[in-house]
């Protein structure tokens, strides 16, 4: 019953999306006077139905209803409840349903709350949102029905990839999806603005909270994904430039650029066409990323749904959506005037520079991700990794970070560096001093990029606090706090990255029980190996005693885990975090002579990478709260004025 209900809700939601598109288009062209009124309610209804469909699927996974094909293939009655639920989106069909549900709910929410834009722009926006949704409904209903029944209920489910049985991963994809799909709202706003040629500060203000919300989720999703890869894959690395990682990074880069250009548009009515373009690009990157992951077109460690037919379907969707949006852009953008002018040395100038650099990094990542495919078309096989991405990305990232430190100090429209020179009296000497110190260290074999990062990060941390100087901290608006947090977080993360690659020490040893191994300042003793059992796995657990610089010993317990549904081995690494870094231990196999393979890393300051990511997201949250609160205040004031006028009029 639940499966049929979910399927019916999904069909209905799809039908409402079609209605939303038709009614919106007709109302826009003035053909149906009564139709304009139904677009908003239809959008909300569609959101509710899509949510019901998704809730039905969660329920099916909760009960492990093995008569449903998707549940039988991806779940198991012996799995812990939390992973049963996570199994809902841990597969192709479920994750596409989540995608559609989030997109429809976002559209419904826009219809519910957004009152600032002119009504025609809203109609065009909601019609645009419906246009994109319809393709995904069709995709789900025609080629990836999540509610399909089996002719005979299965006796037992076929489990979930044990690598995915991890609390971080259970919530990582939905977080990323909220980000990916949240950007669809920015896409639809851009379409609406292009159709009605209403590109201005009101458009930017309406779009900004959505971009900000999506961006917060993307930031958290990427941060969590990176941490997951770090401790779950057991390779000690935190970023692999894998196509799937790049797929999440590219929308983030575009959304970051969009946030900044939308600020310029909102405050100064400049960068109109560029902001609209970024609105289109950001969601396009979400779709491109999803396509690259789902089609299996690029070889990836994450490939969990490789199906050329589905790939073709997503490609068709992508070509229609992005192609149509870019055609509309090409036709309309010439009539969108460029807006206000500004000097090169100004807040706008710095933000434009930031945008160009972010776009540059985006280009680098996109080209690097697609290059293996391009090379194959030319007849050679290559893989592209850190030796390309790191220096090429840094080429744009380093100037961008320097401007990020100075830009917020500049005034809008026109400014001069001599005015802000006084403010840089602390960070600049710090940079020079650290540069010198690190330059000396560079001689001792630290790479060039980590050296630059180590020198730059503290100076940028300090500089990012400067916008708070000469302000009353109590009266500083939340969006300014948000900016300070986010910029500070970027510098913190950068310090972690640089420190990790400059100072990590690694030991790979074969140890007998009782042996001690030294790694960096740590001394780690392998005390014993014990078998232990979990709900659906058994493991060998190493009891290790780790002491830092001769101090008291702490126990850490890495495991080599064996799952039985499906049979698979995973290495559960053990982490020991201190304020100045992390000890990372992995238990490998036992050799024939009885010794155990141990891998140990000491990674100074590595947690700062993720702490920085969280700070960036927190900054976004502060800015979002500040903006929404002031929007609400403005709304209340406007209502009051309207109310008073009405009474006076009477």
């Amino acid at each position: 019953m639940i499966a049929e209900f979910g399927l019916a809700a999904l069909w209905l939601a799809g039908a409402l999306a079609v209605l939303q598109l038709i009614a919106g288009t007709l109302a826009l062209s003035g053909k149906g006077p009564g139709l304009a009124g139904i677009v908003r309610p239809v959008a909300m209804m569609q959101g509710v139905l899509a949510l019901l469909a998704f809730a039905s699927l969660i329920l099916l996974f909760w009960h492990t209803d093995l008569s449903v094909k998707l549940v039988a293939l991806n779940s198991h009655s012996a799995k812990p409840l939390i992973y049963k639920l996570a199994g809902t989106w841990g597969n192709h069909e479920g994750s596409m349903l989540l995608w559609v549900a989030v997109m429809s709910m976002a559209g419904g929410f826009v219809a519910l709350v957004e009152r600032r834009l002119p009504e025609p722009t809203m109609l065009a926006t909601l019609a645009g949102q419906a246009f994109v949704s319809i393709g995904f409904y069709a995709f789900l209903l025609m080629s990836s029905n999540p509610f399909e029944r089996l002719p005979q209920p299965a006796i037992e489910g076929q489990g979930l990839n044990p690598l995915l049985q991890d609390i971080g991963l259970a919530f990582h994809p939905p977080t990323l999806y909220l980000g990916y799909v949240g950007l669809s709202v920015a896409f639809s706003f851009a379409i609406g603005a292009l159709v009605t040629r209403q590109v201005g500060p009101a458009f930017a203000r309406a779009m900004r909270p959505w971009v900000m919300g999506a961006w917060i989720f993307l930031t958290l999703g990427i941060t969590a994904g990176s941490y997951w890869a770090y401790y779950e894959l057991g390779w000690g690395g935190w970023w692999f430039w894998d196509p799937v990682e790049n797929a999440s990074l590219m929308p983030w880069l575009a959304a970051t650029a969009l946030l900044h250009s939308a600020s310029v548009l909102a405050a100064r009515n400049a960068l109109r066409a560029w902001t609209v373009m970024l609105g289109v690009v950001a969601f396009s990157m979400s779709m491109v990323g999803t396509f690259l992951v789902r089609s299996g077109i690029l070889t990836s460690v994450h490939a969990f749904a490789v199906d050329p037919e589905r790939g073709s379907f997503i490609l068709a969707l992508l070509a229609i959506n992005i192609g149509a949006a870019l055609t509309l852009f090409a036709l309309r953008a010439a009539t969108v005037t460029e807006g206000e002018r500004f000097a090169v040395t100004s807040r706008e100038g710095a933000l434009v520079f930031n945008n160009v650099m972010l776009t540059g990094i985006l280009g680098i990542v996109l080209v690097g991700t697609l290059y293996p495919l391009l090379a194959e078309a030319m007849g050679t096989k290559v893989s592209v990794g850190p030796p390309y991405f790191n220096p090429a990305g840094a080429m744009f990232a380093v100037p961008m970070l320097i401007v990020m430190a100075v830009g917020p100090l500049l005034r809008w429209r026109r400014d001069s560096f001599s005015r802000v020179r006084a403010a840089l009296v602390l960070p600049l000497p710090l940079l020079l001093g650290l540069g010198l110190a690190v330059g000396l260290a560079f001689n001792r074999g630290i790479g060039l990029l980590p050296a630059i990062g180590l020198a730059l990060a503290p100076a940028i941390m300090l500089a990012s606090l400067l916008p708070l100087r000469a302000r009353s901290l109590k009266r500083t608006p939340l969006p300014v706090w948000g900016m300070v947090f986010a910029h500070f977080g970027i510098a913190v993360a950068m310090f972690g990255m640089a420190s990790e690659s400059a100072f990590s020490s690694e030991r790979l040893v074969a140890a007998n029980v009782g042996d001690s191994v030294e790694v960096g300042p740590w001394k780690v003793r392998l005390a014993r190996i014990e078998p232990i059992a979990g709900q659906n796995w058994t493991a060998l657990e190493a009891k290790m005693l780790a002491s830092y610089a001769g101090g008291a010993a702490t126990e850490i317990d890495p495991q080599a885990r064996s799952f039985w549904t499906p049979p698979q081995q995973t290495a559960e690494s053990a982490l020991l975090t201190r304020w100045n870094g992390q000890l990372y231990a992995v238990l490998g196999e036992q050799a024939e002579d009885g010794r155990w393979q141990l891998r140990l890393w000491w990674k100074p300051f590595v947690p700062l990478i993720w702490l920085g990511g969280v700070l960036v997201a927190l900054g976004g949250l502060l800015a979002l709260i500040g903006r929404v609160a002031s929007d609400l205040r403005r709304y209340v004031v406007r209502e009051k004025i309207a109310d008073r006028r009405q009474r006076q009029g009477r």
Partner: protein
Amino acid sequence: MSEPAAKASRWALWLPLGLFGLFVALVLYGLMRPASHDIPSAMIGKPLPEFNLPAAQPDRPGLKRADLATGKPRLLNIFASWCIPCAAEAAQLSELARQGVEIDGIAIRDHPEDLAGFLSRYGNPYARIGADDVSSVQLALGSSGVPETFVIDGQGTIRYQHIGDIRPDQIPLILQKLAEAGQ
């Protein structure tokens, strides 16, 4: 803005669509291409790297680069006793050896006892077998797995790489590649 500049920027507005078109063309090619995960060696057409492997078996000599440049084309087979397709391939190698093809082997990460068992069970078509215990020569040859077979010409240049086991119907192909290498 002057008139030609305005016209130029109007054309530039189509640029994103053009780039996107290129992207679609590229991934369409990617979707259409036959799914293949073979990674061809970058060493084809190049002389063999210098190496000198110890003997993997007491009854056969080890293998060094000079052994392969004998003026006559030979096969160099990368295999291991723990590799199941290698066992399936052994009959074809024996057939090639029976037809007079000279074959040298490199055993990857193997133990002498296991290897002796493998050779007694499936036949030993090899003139020499080198023991590559850390895959160093395998990697230098640009081989990404076992089994792989290289056609080496008389001057010690790699002329052809066969990825995966040699199937019975592929024996003529190998003979043809050997003949080409001999010209």
